[in-house]
Each structure stands twice: as structure tokens, then as C-alpha cells.
């Protein structure tokens, strides 16, 4: 069956949804929130998005895409280049290795899986920043950030499920 131009455009647009939503989350993560002690522990929203899309639509969220989004985040946050890119690629890779388990499991198990992923992320971030600054940085902020991200997971996943259903099904 050949698609008309409009159908193809529509399909491409829909297929861009995971990428667009993840970029949007990266930008929302940059909004200054005037609350004390929020900045250091602000949830790592793109990690949730990469985790979700890598499980459900790995064809639309390739490792290269994850890398590019991480790179964009690195450029916008003003941090050392490559750290977020590395973290997001690692999340993608972990999910791809365990995808069969994660696909078959319930939402609760997906959440538990995300806890483990975020602990790994906190370690990688801490290691990378410590190495790049050539000092041993305190680990706690990274841990709290991971915990807050885990706590935010259901809310963000709910939005992602909405987007998934609205644009990519039927």
C-alpha cells in the first residue's frame, strides 16, 4: 500500500513525538524554580523519557537520538560536554538488554527497574563530574536527585503514556 504525501507527513510527525517530548522535557528541566534547595535535586526528566521510549518504542528512540538529546542537555545546562549524553546512552543500552523482561512486567516492576537504573545514573554522574573536576565531590546530591526522579516517575510516565496513546496508536 502506498501512502499519499499527507499520510507520510502525518506518520513522520507522529514518529517524531518521542523525540519532541523528550526535548521538551529537557527544556522544562531548565526552568528556574524559585524554591530553596530545589536546583540541586531537580528531577532528571529526560532519563524517564529515554527509559520509557526505549522500552516501548525503541524504533523511534534510537541510541543515537538519546545521545543527541543528552548532548543538547549538556550544551544547555553549561556542564561538561558528554556527561548527559553518556548517561542517556547507558540508560538506553541497559533497557535494550533487559527489554524483554521490562516489556512483560507490570508498571510496578517497570518502576523498580527505573530505581536501579537511576542508582546507576547517580553513580555514573558522580564519577564523571568527580573525574572532570579532579576532586571527590559529595555523592548525596546525586543520590537525592535520583530519588526525586524516581518519585516523579509515575507522573511523567503518565504523560508519556498519554502522548504514546494519542500519537502513536491506531
Amino acid at each position, binding site marked *: 500500500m502506498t501512502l499519499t504525501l499527507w499520510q507520510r507527513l502525518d506518520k513522520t510527525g507522529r514518529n517524531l513525538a518521542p523525540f519532541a517530548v523528550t526535548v521538551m522535557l529537557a*527544556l*522544562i*528541566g*531548565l*526552568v*528556574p*524554580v*524559585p*524554591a*530553596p*534547595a*530545589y*536546583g*540541586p*535535586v*531537580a*528531577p*532528571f526528566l529526560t532519563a524517564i523519557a529515554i527509559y520509557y521510549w526505549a522500552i516501548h518504542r525503541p524504533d523511534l528512540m534510537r*541510541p*543515537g537520538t*538519546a*545521545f543527541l538529546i*543528552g*548532548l*543538547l542537555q*549538556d*550544551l*544547555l*545546562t*553549561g*556542564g*561538561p*560536554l*558528554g*556527561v548527559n*549524553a*553518556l548517561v542517556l*546512552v*547507558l540508560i*538506553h*543500552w541497559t533497557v*535494550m538488554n533487559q527489554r524483554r523482561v521490562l516489556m512483560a512486567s507490570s508498571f510496578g516492576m517497570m518502576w523498580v527497574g527505573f530505581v536501579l537504573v537511576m542508582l546507576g545514573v547517580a553513580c555514573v*554522574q558522580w564519577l*564523571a*563530574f568527580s573525574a*572532570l*573536576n579532579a*576532586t571527590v*565531590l*559529595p555523592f548525596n*546530591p*546525586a543520590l*537525592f*536527585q535520583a530519588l526525586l526522579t524516581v518519585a516523579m516517575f509515575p507522573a511523567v510516565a503518565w504523560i508519556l503514556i498519554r502522548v504514546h496513546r494519542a500519537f502513536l496508536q491506531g
Partner: protein
Amino acid sequence: MKPRTSGSVVRLAAPLRALAQRFSFLLLVLASIALMMVGKIDALSVDNARARVTDAFAPILDAISRPAATAAHVVESAVEVRNAFEENQRLKAENARLLQWRQAALRLEAENTSLRSLLKATPEPPSTYITARVIAAPGSSFLRTLVVTAGRRDGVRKGQAAIAGAGLVGRVVEVGEWSARVLLLTDINARVPVVLESSRQRAVMAGDNSDQTKLLYLPPDAAIQVGERVVTSGHGGQFPPGLAVGVVSSVGERGVRVQPNVDLARVEHLQLVDFNMPGAETEPSHETK
């Protein structure tokens, strides 16, 4: 014949694709690490790339930061209405005190001018201020920076001081066409030469990603009091001397900690200040990030 070839291509393609996928993962990890190296070695071009990308996204960040700021205002004003009476009393008392200070300041200014004219001292060049709105603050455990809506076309230059209300906030580290990035005092890469106001003890104030900063290179026998004001010393030529920075909050085994005057989590607008310092034309060397 044709279907068979395409079938074998498919059969061949599956493992190839798996191989490519595995390889791409490795490649991407290596690329990330290479980027970290590049950032360390060639910080200047990375800064330029960053300024370009920040510029490109500045309008979007500007737009999405507005509703957040409005919501915060609504919450804050609700809290303020509750405390309006006490706040009013306090402000009246403070205003009376400040009026006295104003008289003192005017008298001192007059005295200063007359003494300067006696000494034929060269007047300090006038400062120019650029006010900018904060549009982005990365939510990260290891970074303390802000992005503001003023750039090269507004006269922002690398190394300028950023102040807000009661004191120094940080300095400009990266300038785009219409956006700029400010490294906050609390960032682990921030270093400010300071002097303690009453003991005249010189030190370098360094951030460590926490809410307070610490003082480096103090002599071990320095007598430092909690509550002492910390101001810029002007060494290094980046900032003029005497700019308020913070207050010593604790002196102990973990070193001397300083509480910045400005609540860095709540900065909404800040002023980038060009002090027209002699020697400021040559860009001060920045520590690599």
C-alpha cells in the same frame, strides 16, 4: 528469483543489524568520552558552541520560564499578604534607620569628593549596568549556573560581574548574541578574591556546589568572627574592590564558610555590571571547566 534474494538479504541483515547496534552503543560511549576530553582541552570552542545553542533555545526558555515565575509570584504574594502587618511595622522601623544612614552616606560622599579634589585622585570610571532576566537554571547536582536574557548586543562581555540586590551573584562565563551564562559563586569552579571587611584578611572564596561557599588560603591563625562581612578584594582585576559578597556563617574544623548575601535559588533578575576596570579589555584568563 527476486523474492529469494530479498529473503536472504533479510536473513543476513538481522545479525548485521544486531552487530551494528552493539557497535553503535560502543561508538556512542566513546564519542561521549571523547567529547569530555574535547571540553577539557579546547574549552573556548566548546564555550562558543554552547553559546550558539543557548542563543537558539533562549526564546523558548524565555517563554516557558514565564509561567513558572508567575506561579511562584502568586504563591509568594499569598504568603506575603498574611504577613503584611508585621512586614509593614518592620519596614517602617528599617526605613527610619535607613534615613539616618542616608544622611551619613551623603555627608561621607561630600567629604570624599572634597578630599579627592585635594588629593587630585583620578575618579573611578563610571559603571554601566545591564539588567537581565534569568530564564534557565540547570537542575543538576553538580552545576550552579544561570542563563540570562542579555548578550553581546546588549553589551555583555565575558568576565563581567553579576549582582542582584544585596550583593555579588557570580560572573559571566559565556556570551551569546542575546543570552549569557553566569557562573554562580557556589559553583565548584567559581573563585573570587575576597577580603574580610574588619580584619582585612585576604582570601579566595570558592564554591563547592553547596549553598554556602568556603574561604581558601587563610592563614591558620587568622582570627575570624562569625558574622564578619566578606567583600571582593579587587585582586586579579575581575571585580572592583568592596563589592558585598556575603557573611561568615561558621568557623570550624570544616573551614570558614560564607553565606552569600543573595539567595541564589531565588534570583529572578540580575544586573551585569561593566565596571570599566583598567585592564579589563584583555579578557581575564578563565579556569577551564
